[in-house]
């Protein structure tokens, strides 16, 4: 609608009925199923969907980087309007000619800046490689271009980063190097596959800003892939929503946000934790739609559940009075956990005989209390010490100094035997559900083991019975007992990890970025589960996350950490409505909000340019 002024032949990329399959010995999975879209010059298309929806495979198909075997493009056309070669079909293009396009006219940025750069070459070398390959310039010239690019992507000290190895710079800087690499040959099309997902919100905001700027400056088209609708709203002109390999809805960004048609799009919009209001339960995909065995989606009838995003939110709203009442009740109890002047230092530089010379102050003089039944949100950018603090409370690492008082008892220096008893009461749920479960242990065993170690119940028969109860608590079933972790999805694994934490009947649970690795829709399910368990068992949570909207949804009170120190502590609503420190203000303003007014304004601004 917005860009209909373009003529038909103005397109840059036209994907027609693309179909990509992955063939294994006994099955064939269609990862991209009959996908079609058109991208005009200078336009930005956002592709949104959960993991496994085929959005990355679509991108890799355009680059023809599908790992083969097992992947293969089996049908369709990818027409690319090359500035030098005219309209070409990438699907039938020879590999030798594809090498010319890759990195030159079509460039790509990947999700994981940490692992996407080669660790044994300097950043400068890796960017120059691309320039020397595609542009006929001398070594000196290439170096000059590279340093210019580094300046353009706002890298500090461009010359020294030129000579730095990837492990010597931060994640955000690595992603900037990746962007510089992608921009090095002035591509007409930039494909960005979740470029900001692994980064902190403040860094994400700055990178998005820079990408917008580069796009407008170079008249470049972007395909921006993400699972976060909020991010899409910040940058895209058009949005395509993918689900199970198909584009279920495609349209103008404003229209998608304003009048979503497909139930899946509605659920995606509704399940994002919001900053403005506090919901009791997050709406999830199954509130909007049914998926039958063949993967056919049908919208739920109005009587069954919500018919629109607005309705889903209104029915769940918690008003201020309820919040106040709850906060007053919580604070009237004696605290369950007191942390006093906790310090956690790590030595970094070692002298000749292993004596430490310098220390990193990961947690620096932190004090706070937690009341029973409360959820404390611990939020901050990566490296702020929030994870270290969580581990120190659990005594997984020995604090350097300070006191930890749990349930009236000083646990800062208790011995091993008592520590084991403590671990019964305090449990942790880790970030990565993929690596925190032993791949060689059935999930039943994994949940049962802590009970056996702590001698809960008399024999394995009873323990097994309890394990099955726990599995049912987290919406899994008896039949899952004998299965291995690799048979489960990320969300299921995280629920298994929750069941394992529950096995010892703890009072206190530390959730360390427990939903960060999950898709928004799955994240909503897990958050709801955590909340309902809390009501059932009266748990106390410390909820650690870098995602402020998630923390806001979960927490009664919030601690904002920065560089090992507490920046601000207060009730969740207060922190968001009137942040006191400049750091908190910046954190909050960096969150992509996806509200309609902002989108409309951004779109109008873009249209004037066209």
């Amino acid at each position, binding site marked *: 609608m917005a860009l209909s002024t373009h003529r038909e032949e103005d397109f840059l990329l036209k994907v027609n009925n693309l179909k990509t399959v992955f063939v294994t010995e006994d099955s064939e999975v269609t990862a991209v199923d009959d996908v079609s879209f058109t991208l005009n010059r200078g336009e930005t298309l956002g592709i949104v969907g959960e993991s496994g929806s085929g959005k990355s495979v679509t991108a890799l198909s355009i*680059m023809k*980087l599908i790992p083969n075997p097992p992947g293969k493009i089996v049908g369709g056309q990818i027409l690319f309007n090359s500035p030098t070669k005219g309209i070409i079909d990438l699907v039938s293009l020879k590999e030798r000619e*594809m*090498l*010319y*396009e*890759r*990195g*030159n006219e079509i*460039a*790509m940025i*990947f999700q*994981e800046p940490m*692992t*996407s*750069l*080669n*660790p*044994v*070459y300097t950043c400068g070398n890796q960017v120059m*490689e*691309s320039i020397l*390959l*595609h542009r006929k310039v001398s070594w000196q010239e290439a170096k000059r271009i590279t340093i210019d690019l580094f300046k353009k992507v706002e890298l500090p000290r461009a010359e020294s980063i030129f000579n730095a*190895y990837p*492990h*010597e710079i931060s994640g955000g800087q690595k992603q900037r190097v*990746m962007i510089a*690499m992608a921009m090095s040959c002035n591509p007409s099309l930039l494909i960005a596959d979740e470029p900001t997902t692994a980064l902190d919100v403040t860094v994400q905001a700055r990178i998005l800003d820079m990408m917008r700027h580069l796009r407008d400056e170079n008249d470049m088209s972007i395909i921006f892939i993400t699972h976060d609708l909020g991010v899409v709203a910040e940058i895209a002109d058009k949005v395509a929503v993918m689900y199970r390999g198909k584009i279920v809805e495609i349209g103008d960004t404003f229209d998608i946000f304003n009048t979503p048609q497909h139930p899946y799009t509605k659920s995606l919009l509704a399940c994002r934790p919001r900053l403005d209001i506090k919901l009791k339960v997050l709406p999830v995909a199954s509130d909007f739609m049914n998926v039958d065995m063949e993967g056919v989606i049908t919208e739920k009838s109005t009587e069954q559940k919500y018919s629109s995003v607005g309705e889903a939110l209104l029915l769940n709203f918690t008003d201020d009075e309820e919040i106040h009442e709850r906060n007053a009740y919580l604070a009237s109890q004696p605290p369950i956990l007191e942390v006093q002047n906790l310090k956690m230092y790590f030595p970094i530089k070692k*002298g*000749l*005989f292993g004596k430490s010379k310098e220390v990193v102050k990961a947690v620096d003089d932190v004090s706070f209390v937690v009341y029973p039944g409360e959820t404390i949100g611990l939020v901050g950018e990566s490296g702020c010490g929030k994870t270290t603090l969580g581990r120190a409370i659990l005594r997984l690492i020995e604090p350097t100094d300070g006191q930890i008082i749990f349930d009236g008892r000083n646990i800062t220096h208790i011995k091993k035997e008592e520590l084991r008893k403590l671990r019964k009461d305090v449990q942790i749920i880790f970030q990565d559900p993929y690596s925190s479960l032993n791949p060689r242990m059935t999930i039943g065993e994994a949940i049962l083991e802590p009970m056996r170690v702590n001698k809960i119940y008399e024999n394995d028969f009873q323990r097994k019975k309890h394990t099955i109860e726990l599995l049912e608590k987290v919406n899994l079933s008896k039949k899952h007992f004998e299965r291995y972790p690799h048979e489960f999805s990320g969300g299921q694994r995280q629920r298994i990890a929750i069941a394992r934490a529950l096995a010892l009947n703890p009072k206190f649970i530390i959730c360390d970025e427990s939903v960060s690795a999950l898709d928004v829709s799955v994240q909503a399910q897990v958050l709801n589960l955590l909340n309902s368990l809390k009501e059932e068992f009266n748990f106390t949570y410390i909820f650690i996350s870098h995602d402020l909207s998630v923390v806001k949804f979960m927490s009664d009170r919030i601690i904002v950490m920065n560089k090992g120190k507490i920046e601000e502590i207060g009730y969740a609503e207060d922190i968001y409505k009137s942040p006191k420190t400049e750091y908190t203000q910046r954190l909050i303003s960096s969150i992509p909000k996806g509200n309609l007014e902002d989108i409309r304004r951004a779109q109008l601004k873009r249209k004037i340019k066209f």
Partner: protein
Amino acid sequence: MLQYIIRRMLYGTLVLLGAVVVVFFIFNVLPGDPVSMLAGTRTDVAKRDEIARDLGLYEPLHRQLYLYLRDLSPVSVHENTPEEREKYEYLPLLTWGKNVIVLKMPYLRRSYQNNRRVSEIIWENMEGTFWLALAAMLFATIFGMTIGIIASLKYNTTLDHAMVSLSVIGISSPPYVIGTLMAMIFGYYLSNITGLNITGHLWDLDDNGNKVLVLKNIILPAITLGLRPLAIIVQLTRSSMLDVLSQDYIRTARAKGLHYYTIVVKHALKNALNPVITAVSGWLASLMAGAFFVEVIFGWKGLGTVTIDAINNLDFPIVMGVTIFVAFSFIIINILVDLLYALVDPRVRVK
């Protein structure tokens, strides 16, 4: 980095000290009479007594250990007498009274069989072993890595399976079997075609009694010795390459439009090297210990032959000397390898 090297050297010295002490005690509990070995059977009691005193056999064990350590230490205190001077060939640093602090080559004592200095014997025979080990490892590394890379690029094809199967055979066949077969087939039955001998050393004497280099003699023993490390390097390179090729930065390199072989050689190989370096250095060090069977089978003059000979004759100083020398080579090679790691992988440099 320099600090790191110094620390590694200090640790190395400690390891060496431990090795010396262990070796000393092991050889003290072994049976055998060094005095009879040295003096032969037809000597008088006085002569035997003198030899025993010279070897320090009348001293208590801890004093014997002290004397042995003093002999080995490059800096030590000795009596300032002409006998001592001749025995240790030392360089005096500081004299006071009867004693002198000296700088010397470690004194490994003398062979019981022919009374020659052990260090001299090791030095003479080390060359053969060194060249043999080096040739074997070069053969193993070059072919092993090439085959490993090819196997990883042809992952899950017949060629890959064949190479992996062959390498399993290589790992599981003992060198004395391979050695005997190689010597029989290529050195005897096919010697008309190959022109190789069953036995022979790197240096030979020609008709005029001059030393000549016979390079072809190294071929069979080196291949025999290198076969096993080769098989292991194939597997290591292959699995390491497979791991690296599935990394995100390889995808990045492909997205740049680089040619596949450039990616393999420039981006993948350097990352895949670490485990291979570990294996190569470990093998090189243990081959320096002398490849006993192979040296004996091919009549190669090296540390292996000397050691077996010494063991047969209960010539303990040689066996002890070789053991300590091997420990020393291990430590040196390990320090060199650590430097090599840092060269290949910048992430190691920080630590």
